[in-house]
């Protein structure tokens, strides 16, 4: 099992390097601005009629994502109820 641990360490090291590489290449505090976000900040009050721009993004500009988020929650609730349902007598299959 020694070689497996070494392999694990190598994999983790490579992934760590590649996930930490962005922190060396991106500059914190001055993001790239191609106009999308500044446009939202400048015009969000007019278009979405909100003072909190994040609210405007969540419920208007990207409202469809929020619907998707609610669906994920719905999915998880259905999944959990499916797991803890009362099962019939001979429903379960004996896997061999």
């Amino acid at each position: 099992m020694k070689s497996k641990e070494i392999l694990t360490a190598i994999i983790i090291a490579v992934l760590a390097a590649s996930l930490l590489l962005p922190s060396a290449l991106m500059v914190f505090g001055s993001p790239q601005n191609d106009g999308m976000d500044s446009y939202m900040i400048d015009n969000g009050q007019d278009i979405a009629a909100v003072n909190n721009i994040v609210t405007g993004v969540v419920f208007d500009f990207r409202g469809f994502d929020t619907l998707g988020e609610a669906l994920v929650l719905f999915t998880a609730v259905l999944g959990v109820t499916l797991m803890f349902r009362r099962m019939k007598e001979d429903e379960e299959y004996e896997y061999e």
Partner: protein
Amino acid sequence: MAVIETLNTGFGSWNPLIWLAAFIIAIILAWFIWLRGESDYRKGTEQTKPFISGNAEPEKGEVHVRGGNMYWGFTNALEDYYERLVPLHSGILTDYILWFLGVMAIVMILVLGGGLI
């Protein structure tokens, strides 16, 4: 007609309708041969019983060749290969995650290192 149904693969073509016609002709032929079979065959009589030189018929379950018996020779011939391959499917979640991350690490090296080589 022949042009419409022909599949062009870029190098040649293949016409499934001819195949289909051959298929249907083969089935009709088989049906024809079957029709000419023994006319005194009667269902439910002793004719339908298997004839095993007068010996008693074994249990139905023993006659049937089960799935596990098939390709025994194949898997036995490739035993070395299967002995290496099957244990990889260990069923342990941690191993599966490691395989996923391992492939990701390899591809990461290939793609990021591609500029250096």
